[in-house]
């Protein structure tokens, strides 16, 4: 294999959708209905998927961890431009996380593309015939390009560029039915809300650029570690914003971008509205890939984080996961229900990163991508089958009409609920990933102070941090002060260990430094853990409710039920993704992420924790947690079934009993209303004020000046030059005259008057300066001579 083999393949996979995009832009309408779609499937996603598979196989089975680390180190960088004198390079961030993410995106997207052909075949005519059909696939291709570009970017600036481009695609696709007012409104809301987040991202980016002097991810991390060690650069500043250091502000700024894209509280408002887009788009962009980009970003800049920044991230994640899960309970629109569950799950990922559960959060990202894409496609199948009915209250009993959809949806419900048999390794999706996040949160909330004090006071025990924590079975992922270039040997040990699911013992030579870090990271407030645990009960409840209302019970709307049907082209992807969900829970992804973790979390100030042993239920204290979380889904399922078993009467009674609470939840805590008043209306008001100032103040000052000049001129004209200056300035105020008159005045010399006026002024000024200059000249000569 040649040099830069992986980068070339990955880059080709990014460019292929671009080719597809341009083909569809220019030749799309000519290609016609199915062909345009298949072009996108083959070029837009088929080729990238094939390349991704090739890369994955040779990367994971063809290389050992030493050669992987070496490849990461020697990845190709193209010199793109200079900012000032700082070179900006374009390249592939080649590590196991990139490979895993790339594969996940291409795999999920490929099947969604296939699904889209079925979905759009019935859709396009209602809008604009074929040109709109090809436009849809052109946008999807552009999205594929941008998303894959985002995944492989080695540079924060390019990450930002692709970041905005996926935002653009999201905007275009949410507003795909732009003849409908709510769709274009939702599109704008999405883009502008994201821009608000990007504003923070830009500030973070500027701080990185200014303080670290580079935008390359690895270099920035290395510089950051060095500055942390020596107390220079960003750490030498005594800046403080409400107690946050400059480094914290940088981390929070970067996280703001993630808040926008991953729709975290309080910038979450755009995602539910984004469901106005076609359902495959909701599955691809607003569930599986783009919204996860924020999580990916935080994972990528983990090394630049400080304890305060991570605490803020955990707080935001915690609020999001709780608040959004509660809203999901009252949703009656099947897509909105899934959208709020996406928000809540994204909250889990962000919360996980905030706790330091780097591996678990990304693992959850992967499993979530599979099952949530599948759930959305199922909902698309239902919506399409029911003639665009999205209200679950009109559904019910659909299992007989669409059995494949029903049971794949059920697999999704199990996966998101974290169903599995506690204490064993039999489970699905969230059973591994979400529970691992909770395990790490548990350690951070309950056992952290002990652990920190213990380690700091007892130097001998420090080396134990590298291995499994004696109490909790949670261990550190990496050596904190190790920089990006430092840890090949350890990377090897770690990678091998994780790949085989075994524990490992690595002896670091910087144990004391690690121990001191341990002491500087505060424990997680306990309420955060409780909220996350509570939501682990809420999630299965609303998902079971959603499934039950749609597929079980008796049909509630005869009309909808009679029309319901399943389409074959569409359920193949469903089945594939269901199998994918199963496999993703067990194979490949977690070891890949764990392999990347060592280098990617080698932060100087914060620690990443590996909660893997949780699933094997090591340790007595841990067993409570295992069963407490592991049993959640059974209790919640039973509760949901009990309430919704007999149609909508019981829920209706409950709703009446809890009317105020229901009102708050249905209005989503009134965020939209408040934002509308403060931001949208406020901004427009400000704009109107600006227009008022411009028209009535700034402009009229100049008009008044002109009028004053006219008066003075008229006055002086009486005395000095009645026919010259007077005529000139009158023209200022008297503005509208006809064309003929205009030309006539030109010919009769009014313009000439202007020129004379200008020349006259110039002459006076000139003489004045000459005299002033002459008198000054002597002084200057004297001073120069001295």
């Amino acid at each position: 294999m040649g040099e830069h083999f992986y980068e070339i393949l990955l880059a080709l996979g990014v460019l292929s959708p671009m080719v597809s995009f341009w083909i569809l832009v220019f030749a799309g309408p000519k290609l016609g209905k199915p062909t345009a779609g298949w072009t996108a499937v083959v070029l837009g996603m088929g080729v990238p998927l094939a390349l991704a598979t090739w890369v994955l196989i040779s990367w994971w089975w063809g290389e050992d961890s030493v050669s992987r680390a070496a490849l990461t180190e020697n990845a190709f960088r193209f010199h793109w431009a200079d900012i000032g004198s700082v070179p900006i390079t374009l390249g592939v961030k080649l590590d196991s996380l990139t490979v895993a993410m790339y594969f996940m995106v291409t795999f999920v997207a490929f099947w969604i593309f296939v699904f889209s052909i079925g979905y759009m075949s019935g859709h396009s005519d209602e809008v604009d015939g074929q040109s709109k059909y090809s436009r849809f696939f052109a946008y999807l291709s552009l999205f594929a390009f941008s998303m894959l570009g985002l995944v492989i970017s080695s540079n924060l600036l390019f990450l930002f560029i692709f970041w905005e481009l996926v935002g653009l695609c999201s905007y275009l696709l949410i507003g795909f039915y732009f003849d409908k007012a709510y769709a274009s409104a939702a599109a704008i809301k999405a883009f502008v809300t994201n821009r608000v987040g990007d504003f923070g991202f830009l500030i973070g980016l500027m701080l990185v650029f200014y303080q670290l002097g580079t935008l390359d991810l690895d270099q920035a991390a290395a510089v950051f570690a060095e500055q942390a060690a020596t107390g220079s650069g960003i750490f030498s500043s005594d800046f403080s914003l409400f107690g946050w250091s400059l480094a914290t502000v940088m981390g929070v700024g970067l996280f703001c971008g993630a808040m926008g894209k991953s729709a975290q509280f309080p910038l979450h408002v755009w995602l539910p509205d984004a469901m106005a887009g076609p359902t495959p788009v909701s599955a691809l962009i607003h569930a599986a890939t783009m919204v996860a980009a924020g999580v990916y970003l935080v994972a990528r800049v983990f090394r630049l984080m400080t304890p305060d920044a991570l605490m803020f991230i955990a707080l935001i994640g915690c609020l999001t996961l709780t608040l959004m899960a509660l809203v999901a309970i009252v949703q009656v629109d099947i897509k909105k229900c899934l959208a709020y569950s996406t928000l809540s799950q994204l909250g889990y990922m962000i919360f996980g990163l905030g706790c330091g559960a780097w591996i678990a959060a990304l693992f959850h990202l992967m499993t979530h991508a599979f099952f949530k894409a599948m759930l959305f496609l199922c909902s698309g199948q239902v919506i399409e089958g029911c003639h665009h009915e999205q209200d679950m209250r009109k559904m019910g009993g659909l299992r007989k009409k669409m059995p494949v959809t029903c049971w794949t949806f059920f697999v999704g419900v199990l996966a998101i609920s974290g169903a599995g048999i506690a204490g064993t390794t039999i489970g699905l999706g969230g059973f591994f990933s979400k529970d691992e996040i909770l395990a790490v949160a548990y350690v951070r909330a309950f056992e952290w102070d002990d652990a920190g004090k213990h380690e700091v006071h007892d130097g001998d025990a420090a080396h134990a941090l590298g291995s499994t924590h004696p109490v909790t079975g949670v261990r550190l992922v990496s050596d904190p002060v190790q920089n990006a270039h430092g840890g090949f040997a350890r990377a090897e040990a770690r990678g091998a260990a994780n790949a085989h699911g075994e524990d490992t013992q690595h002896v670091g030579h910087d144990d004391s430094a690690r121990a001191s870090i341990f002491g500087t990271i505060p424990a997680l407030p306990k309420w955060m853990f409780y909220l996350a645990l509570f939501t682990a009960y809420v999630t299965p409840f609303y998902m079971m409710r959603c499934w039950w209302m749609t597929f079980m019970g008796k049909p509630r709307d005869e009309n909808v039920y009679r029309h319901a049907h399943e389409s074959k082209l569409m359920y193949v992807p469903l089945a594939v993704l269901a199998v994918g969900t199963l496999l993703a829970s067990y194979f490949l992804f977690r070891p890949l992420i764990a392999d990347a973790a060592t280098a990617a979390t080698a932060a100087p100030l914060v620690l990443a924790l590996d909660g893997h042993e949780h699933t094997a239920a090591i340790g007595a204290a841990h067993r409570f947690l295992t069963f407490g979380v592991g049993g959640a889904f059974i209790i919640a399922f039973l509760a949901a079934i009990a309430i919704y078993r007999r149609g909508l009467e019981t829920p209706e009674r409950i709703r009446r009993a809890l009317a105020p609470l229901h009102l708050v939840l249905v209005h989503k805590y009134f965020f939209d209303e408040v934002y509308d008043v403060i931001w949208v209306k406020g901004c427009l008001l400000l704009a109107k004020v600006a227009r008022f100032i411009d028209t009535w103040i700034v402009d009229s000052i100049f008009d008044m000046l002109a009028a004053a000049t006219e008066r003075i001129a008229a006055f002086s004209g009486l005395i000095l030059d009645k026919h010259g200056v007077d005529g000139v300035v009158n023209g200022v105020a008297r503005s509208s005259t006809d064309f003929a008159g205009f030309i006539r005045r030109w010919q009769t010399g009014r313009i000439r008057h202007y020129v004379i006026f200008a020349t006259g002024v110039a002459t006076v000024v000139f003489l004045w300066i000459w005299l002033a200059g002459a008198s000054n000249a002597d002084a200057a000569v004297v001073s120069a001579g001295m």
Partner: protein
Amino acid sequence: MSILTWIVFVPMLGALLCMVVPRRQIRTVAVAASLVTFLLSLSLFATFFNPAGETSGEGFGSRYGMLQHVQRATWIESKSFAIEYFVGMDGLSFPLIVLTTLISLLSCLASWNFDKWAINKGPRAYFALFLLLETGMLGVFVSLDFFLFYIFWEVMLLPMYFLIGAWGGPRREYAAIKFFLFTLAGSVLMLVALVAMYFYSDQAITAEMARQGIEGVASGYREGVIISHGTFDLMELATNPAIQNHFAASSTLFLGWRFAPLMFLFLFVGFAVKLPCVPVHTWLPDAHVEAPTPISMILAGVLLKMGGYGFLRLCYPIFPTGGMTWAFPVAVIGVVSIIYGALCAMAQTDFKRLVAYSSVSHMGYVMLGIAVMTDTGFQGALFQMIAHGISSPMCFFLVGMVYERAHHREINRFGGLWLTMPRYGTLATIGFFASLGLPGLCGFIGEVWVLLGVFAAAEKFTWAIPMAILAAAGVVLTAGYILWLIRRVYLGKEREEHAGFPDASGRETFILVPMALLCIALGVFPMQTVFIFTNGTLDAMLAQMARVIGMGS
């Protein structure tokens, strides 16, 4: 004769030709003249790869003042004055020359359907004035003698006045006079500076010669008849140590004020009007709204750039200490322009007025980037000028196309135009997204470079970081008004009244596509398209400025 001379005067020859050819041939002659000019300017690219007087091909200028295609000849001479015809080009003027010839060609093509305009009298005068305007604009960018610069500056003013005032909309006269008076007010101050700089440079050289005990003249090209040693040579003014020392010295006073800050201010006001920045921007929306489409394109694409060019050619290299003194107010004006322009744009209901206010907002980035005097800031500002010089004529042409079809510009009366005119809708999206600053398109690079440059100036200026943050907030507002505009005009249901609109014609597409491609090319390859040409000169200029500032402190 220098190729630059040809580039400047070919349009003027075309203008003369327009006066004599048969009426039906006028527009052909005009397009031919601007095409020839454009092709001539393209040949300048060869200069970059084979520059005179330099060994490396890496950009123009290993020092500031390293010029290409120089032509200089004494033009007006008396006992006390020597005014030269002095043209030349470096990395600062080169991209602007090419931009000018390109935009002139495209807007000349946009004037092709002159016969169908509401006011279509006098094509002879229109095209002649149009070409004269092009000569004026190019003259400003190539002349390196201040007096010559000033003459071209005024030459450009009159054709513009007539083009707006004679072929414009209903309030054309008000707009034309407003444009004229604002610019004139600015140029009066510039004239003061022009004369003052001449005499003060005379003092400097005379004193220096006295110090060294040299008799006679300072420079070789003037024969011994002149008693003054003053100069209008912009390069000499910026690089001669004696002149720079004298200008920057705190003992050099002008009517009791320190010389450098005051002269900087005089020049600054003249260029700020042109840029334009708040609060002297009010001529711009009026001029744009009334001007015919091709003239709007020129106005937005080239004329506004003269303000920025003036800052970079005159204000900063000649008075770097003045730049330091005024850095804060200049940056404040830049930020205010960004935010205030964006807010004003948001409140507009006239399509063209909205685009005009967006220009104010975008040019604010230019001013902000220049204000901090860092390499990144200068690079970003110049890039932003060129990017805006492409995206904003495109937007104005897009507006003009709608206006030709609908005969109104009320944003709220449009809707669904993308469905009516799909090809036009696609190109419009590119244009407006470039204006929005979407990554991958040209508007993004300038903004980011400026923001990073301002932020990185925190070592020099304590206010730099708050400024950068405020300016970054502008990107949210920009996204707001552009997307809202797109939604109201292009998205939504197709309307009955617009159903019969034809899609973009061949000619219109031909005008839009080059600009769209350039938007993408500049956004994706900023180094290859702009920075390799400009950075050498800007770096040299900054090094020169740093020396002067260092001497003063």
